[in-house]
């Protein structure tokens, strides 16, 4: 029989798990970066032609190409970019000169270091996604709980109706309606914009609350359905019957026995959703006119801005990988059976 090794009791096991996960994360990021790089050059367009002003002649284009290093062999370009992240690199006078690690290159379009762009836009996306995720989890799990407990009543049906609406609607529609009502008609809220939470928390919340609400409305629908189904399934489990046979009251049966078993799949889905959302909420950012990671990435693709594309894709991948790691850790905390493997 296997020895018990909980997360706490086996530090070496925990360390092995982490090392293994980090190695696989690095491998994932490497694959993502190679694919992004190759896809960029597979596009049937010349990045130089897009950034050169009207009176372009082949000589000028060639000079720009040389400056950007785009005429070097692909392997050299890739190695240069990736090494820059670790060691920093010298980009030459036209691109701001020395670029310290982690150097993500110089944007062809924005005329600034990509690192600076990220420092500006990542907090925006974090500010949109993190509060929205808290909201949609609370709303989704709450709705799912209530409708499972009141199964078959009008409350349940209303909740199901809501989730159906949430699953069918789109963010640009919900967002537009919210904007129309709360900003342009009632005037209760300012036009959405981003202010740093450290500068003015009230303006930060006021400028983003509609984005949170529309994300929460849409995402919570899925969670409500998932959690309701999980809870109903769990309530039929033998161990719930055992709990009742012990003489436990309803709340104790739910709280200590049913909820914990039903929440595990919600954690998985939430981790994946949050990870993906942190990679950029393009539609939300566009709907509310806020420049976050998502819009930056889309703009970069449109402009053929290789360093920015690489950087945004890598950051998004890091978020997804981290979210997955977190889900695995949480799972081990929730379900002791996972800890053995």
């Amino acid at each position, binding site marked *: 029989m296997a020895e018990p090794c909980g997360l706490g009791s086996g530090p070496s096991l925990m360390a092995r798990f982490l090392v293994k996960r980090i190695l696989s994360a690095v491998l994932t990021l490497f694959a993502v970066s190679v694919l992004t790089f190759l896809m960029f050059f597979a596009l049937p367009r010349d990045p130089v032609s897009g950034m050169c002003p009207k009176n372009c002649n082949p000589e000028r284009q060639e000079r720009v190409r040389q400056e950007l290093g785009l005429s070097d062999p692909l392997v050299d370009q890739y190695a240069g970019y990736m090494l820059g992240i670790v060691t920093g690199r010298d980009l030459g006078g036209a691109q701001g000169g020395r670029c310290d690690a982690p150097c993500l290159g110089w944007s062809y379009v924005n005329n600034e270091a990509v690192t600076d762009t990220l420092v500006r836009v990542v907090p925006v996306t974090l500010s949109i996604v993190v509060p929205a995720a808290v909201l949609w989890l609370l709303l989704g799990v709450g709705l799912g709980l209530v409708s499972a407990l009141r199964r078959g009543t009008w409350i349940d049906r209303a909740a199901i109706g809501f989730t159906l609406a949430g699953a069918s609607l789109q963010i640009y529609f919900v967002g537009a309606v919210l904007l129309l009502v709360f900003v342009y008609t009632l005037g209760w809220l300012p036009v959405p914009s981003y202010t740093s939470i450290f500068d003015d928390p009230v303006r930060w919340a006021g400028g983003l609350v509609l984005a949170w609400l529309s994300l929460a409305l849409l995402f919570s629908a899925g969670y409500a359905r998932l959690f309701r189904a999980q809870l109903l399934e769990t309530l039929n489990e033998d*161990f719930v019957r055992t709990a009742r046979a012990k003489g436990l009251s309803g709340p104790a049966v739910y709280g200590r026995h049913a909820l914990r078993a039903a929440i595990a799949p919600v954690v998985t889905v939430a981790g994946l959703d949050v990870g993906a959302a942190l990679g950029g909420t393009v539609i939300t950012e566009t709907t509310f006119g806020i420049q976050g990671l998502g819009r930056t990435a889309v703009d970069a693709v449109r402009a053929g801005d290789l360093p920015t594309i690489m950087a945004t894709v890598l950051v998004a991948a890091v978020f997804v990988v981290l979210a997955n790691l977190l889900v695995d850790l949480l799972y081990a905390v929730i379900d002791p059976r996972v800890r053995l493997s």
Partner: protein
Amino acid sequence: MDPYLRVTDLRVDFTSTDGMVRAVDGVSFTVERGRTLCVVGESGAGKSSLALALLGLHDPRRATVAGEITVAGHGLVGRPEAALRRLRGRDVAMIFQDPLSALHPYHPVGRQIAEAYRVHHRRAGRAETRRRVVEMLDRVGISQPDRRYDQYPHELSGGLRQRAMIAMALVNDPALLIADEPTAALDVTVQAQILELLTDVQAEYGTAIVLITHDLGVVGQVADDVLVMYAGRVMERGHAGQVLRTPQHPYTWGLLASVPSLRGDPEADLRPIPGLPPNLLDLPDGCVFHPRCRHTEPVGHRCRTEPPQLRAVGTGGHRLACHLPTRERIRRQAEETTRVGVAR
């Protein structure tokens, strides 16, 4: 003295979308302290519905329980949920079939038992509770109880899990133990150990036990009384000796004939009961067993039209629901039971 558990004309109805199902129909019996009643029958006979009714665990939105159940003189049917909760786990405890699914996978077994104790001992402190649980784990034959306390169900073997389940059921010294197929998920050797444990515990605490099983081998080992159920009804009831040695109902004969025996004629084939248990939504008229019964011809149409009443046969509380005339029945009984060597 009044028997500890008295069940009178118990009926459990389920309403489903396809119609009403009577899972338990007019079942009556008593169990005294220190005695074991085995409820026998194929799957779908209503045994588990009966067990859940004894704890008042049926969901009132889905099932209707009628008739009378008294535990230590107190009626259970129609009692408010809060009163039932005080009874569950304290006076009446239950052991389930599959301990792996009946124990919560996310909590250490010791803590699950401790929870059962603290529900009914609100003032018990942490240390006292742990001491009590470790004592119970030790009592049910779990070695290193202090270490096992913190282990999870998946870390224990099937036998240990069922022992832990029994420790959970016994932690509040219940007077009545309901065991629903407690050995069905276990190896044969472990089965024997678990049954022995139950008998030991009963001898020590004078527990009344209702043991639900489809395994007549188990019945032979532990039963004082036997209740044979089919399609929610009682076919035959009596002391274990009566029912096992001189079974009177063709269904009981069939059950016995379908069990391999070490002492019977080695040439005799196992003979399963032909056909399947009836669909409870569409029960046959008359005796519910008649479509599968090979002994209807001396009776004729009554088997198909008139449900037999449970009435006394012989002496000493042996009861039977069958239309077969006495002489014919005794002749056939001798034939049916010597063939398979029922003398257990």
